[in-house]
């Protein structure tokens, strides 16, 4: 439970490590349900198939004793507080198991008045990483099966959580694949960049899974579903696809917590997180803004400074 323990770098993370986190989560979840601190805890239960996990809301101490944490716990659970399970919050305080990237989403949602911090009990996970999409689920996390986003994670420690589960361990010497990919695209000639994205977007089937899974896409009516006026064509044609993904990236700019769930759930393998990463990089460079673990008053695109860069304006 000592999150501040000095961090270690290893070549693989054994199941025992996750078991220790699981124990800590269970202990905490049972406790807060017993003393009625919370009315329920959003966490992970074992999936039906071996090596999987599925999100769950537990409301009794008994159920809480079954919660787990494993490299298969890929989901960002914060989405269960705003969309799917929105009703839960009304009854009282809710506990939630949150990895670093999930906590950024929670912080953003608090910033945007969608959640109140005092209505949450955050069981922060000192997360060493989770499986990548389609990776082999051996129970042990290695460089071979870790998710792309985890390769360059900067929020292993869930600072600001009510409790933290786990000790700090991470895989050593991982190449930052996403950053390299982003640099590769940026280095392309403009026409090639267009071709790259055109190819990706043209595959989009507009299943809207990316929207569904995003903690920040909590609007009750999406701009892109409106037809009076229709700002974004809704059928899966290349023009509308391009518009949808640009609008999505723009709407998430300055808000996205980088959980990369959109990319994980995309059935067409569109590298959506690259767009989010690119916007985050720009806002860091221009306005020194980074999505953090704690709520802020205003996001970078909801505020300004008089001396903001305007070198692009004539």
């Amino acid at each position, binding site marked *: 439970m000592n999150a501040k323990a000095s961090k270690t770098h290893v070549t693989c993370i054994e199941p025992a490590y996750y078991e220790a986190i699981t124990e800590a989560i269970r202990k905490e979840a049972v406790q807060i349900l017993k003393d009625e601190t919370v009315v329920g805890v959003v966490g992970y239960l074992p999936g039906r198939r071996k090596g999987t996990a599925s999100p769950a809301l537990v409301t009794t101490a008994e159920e809480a004793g079954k919660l787990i944490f494993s490299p298969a716990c890929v989901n960002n659970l914060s989405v269960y507080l705003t969309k799917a399970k929105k009703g839960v919050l009304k009854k009282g305080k809710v506990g939630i198991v949150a990895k670093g990237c999930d906590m950024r989403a929670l912080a953003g949602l608090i910033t*945007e*008045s*969608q959640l109140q911090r005092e209505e949450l009990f955050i069981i922060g996970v000192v997360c060493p990483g989770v499986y990548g999409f389609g990776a082999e689920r051996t129970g042990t996390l290695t460089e071979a099966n870790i998710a792309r986003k985890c390769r360059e994670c900067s929020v292993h420690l869930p600072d600001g959580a009510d409790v933290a589960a786990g000790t700090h361990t991470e895989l050593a010497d991982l190449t930052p694949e996403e950053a390299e990919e982003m640099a590769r695209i940026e280095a392309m000639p403009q026409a090639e960049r267009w071709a790259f994205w055109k190819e990706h977007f043209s595959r989009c089937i507009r299943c809207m899974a990316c929207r569904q899974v995003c903690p920040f896409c*909590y*609007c*009750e*009516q*999406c*701009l892109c579903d*409106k037809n*009076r*006026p*229709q*700002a974004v064509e809704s059928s899966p044609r290349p023009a509308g696809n391009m518009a949808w993904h640009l609008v999505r990236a723009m*709407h998430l700019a300055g808000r996205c917590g980088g959980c990369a769930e959109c990319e994980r759930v995309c059935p067409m393998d569109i590298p959506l997180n690259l767009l989010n990463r690119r916007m985050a990089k720009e806002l860091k460079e221009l306005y020194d803004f980074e999505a953090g673990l704690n709520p802020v*008053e*205003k*996001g970078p*695109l*909801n*505020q300004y400074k008089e001396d903001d860069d305007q070198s692009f304006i004539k």
Partner: protein
Amino acid sequence: MSRIGVFVCHCGENISRTVDVEQVAKAAGEIPGVAYSCDYKYMCSDPGQTLLKKAVAEHKLDGVLVAACSPRMHEKTFRKAAEAAGLNPYLCEMANIREHCSWVHEDRGMATAKAKDIVKLMVERVRKGKSLAPITVPVTKRALVIGGGIAGIQAALDIADAGHKVVLVERDPSIGGHMAQLSETFPTLDCSQCIMTPKMVDVANHPNITLFTYSEIEKVEGYIGNFQVTVKHKARSVDEKKCTGCGVCMTKCPKKKIPNEFDQGHGMRPAIYVPFPQAVPNTPVIDRENCTMFQSGKCGVCAKVCGPGAVDYEQKDTFTVEDVGAIVVATGFKLYTIDRKPEGSPIQGYGEFGYGTIPDIIDGMTFERLASASGPTGGKILRPSDGKEPKQVVFIQCVGSRAREKGISYCSKVCCMYTAKHTMLYHHKVHDGQAYVFFMDARTPGKGYDEFWRRAVEEEEAVYIRGMVSRMYQRGDKIVVMGSDIQVGTQVEIEADLVVLATAVQPQDGADLLAQKLGISYDKYNFYSEAHAKLKPVECATAGIYLAGACQGPKDIPDTVSQASAAAAKVMTLFAKDQLERDPVVAKVNEKYCVGCFACKKVCAYGAIEEKEIRDRQGNLVKKVAYVNPGVCGGCGTCQATCPSKSIELDGYTDEQIMAMIEAL
């Protein structure tokens, strides 16, 4: 299907010279939903407007587009006409085919094509437009006047006499402003204080006027008819209610050698003081920076000698919020100084005059104090350095003013007249003295003004030299003034005992900060901008705020008083109605879809967006949504561009309208 009418104006030949208006009208007629189109020589003329009204009735039009000049020119005209014809005025739009087309392109084919496109776009805007009803807001019939000089006093008295309550806020401990400092006034040479002090007393005694001196504007919220103004009452250290104004504290104060601001630093005052004997209110104030008690904690003489126990060293700044419906800004001016200005300052000092280091070079206001019977010399003209009576006095006009190279290009308007007055006052007081005046032009338009100036030259023996001064330096106890006389075409050198500079009139320090609080605009010199140079010289562009006096530009007393009364009249016009109508271009929230992220609230510069709770019939909170106060909303639409789900929409510029226009490209 809509029934839109398109009216294409020739504007004489202004449009038809480069745009084939007949073709434009014909093309417009072919746009689906356009029920009628025509072209006409002058749409804005009476027959033109009649044509429009008739067409609306005959063709049962439900929207009107006038393709003519800029909407900034005639939108109001045509909306009125449309309204007269029974249409909602906001269903009438203008397509700008003059400023944006016929005047800027010469190729007839291209210009006609562009005009057709503009009409096509705007037809879509009309088609998607909505009827809007003007918004009415209640009016608080109480006015705020900022500044207690002659402008503020006049405006406050006029409004108060009309039966409305007035709050008058003055930064200094007393009202009176610059006019109270003047010795005598042009062109009649009557004593300034003699005409000023009765007005000051009127203010103090008026039942409708609440006077706050030694107070400043902290914050301004709200909008026309409904301002909430936070006033900061600076700690006077003297209880105004207890003080009888006996003045014992001032005579007993051990610290007496503080330069008196009212005498331009040439007289002395104690640390507890009233600025001048006729001050209103006659309640002293402690200058904490110079008071021994405040600086070292040891003294307390004034508290000991004060019979009523009015001295209060513990007093703190206090704040009150005043609800007012209109604001008159009358913050006046200050005089330019010739000292070296900071690096990069747009306004320069006068190195050639020694940057203000020569003591016997003074400004016009200092001369006023020297000439005033209540001034530091008791009305004798004595120079500051050694107290001697100057026998040669050089007056220099346009110091700073009309000097583009010094950063100020405007004329300060009052200097010609007051310099003429100064030469007379000097001649009356120092019979064997000689006054010289360096001037560019004598600008004396005003009733009795030129006669006054001629008198200074012809009867009072002032020597006017047309030309400017290039350099002044101290030699012995004289000031050598080197200049030119362009009429004789020669260099001139005068050894003066005293030099009086007619320095430029500038807005008060902090004028820009106050403007920012008020949300009014100002020019590059920080003078406040009127809404229209000719037709709205008293109003600000911000509704409900009016200007009086030199804060808007250099003015003499008669002009200032006139403008103050005009501002008061505007306030009274506003107060004549209980409700007031405003443009309905404001944002509205779609509560069904708003999820309450309040991004709109974060970007709203007006603070117009509030959080509203939606509850079910049992009173349970369903959700929080944004709510726009239509009275406060400025109508910029930044909220709509920010809202991810577009659940907030700006009337008059809806996404539907804009998208339809883009589709028509």
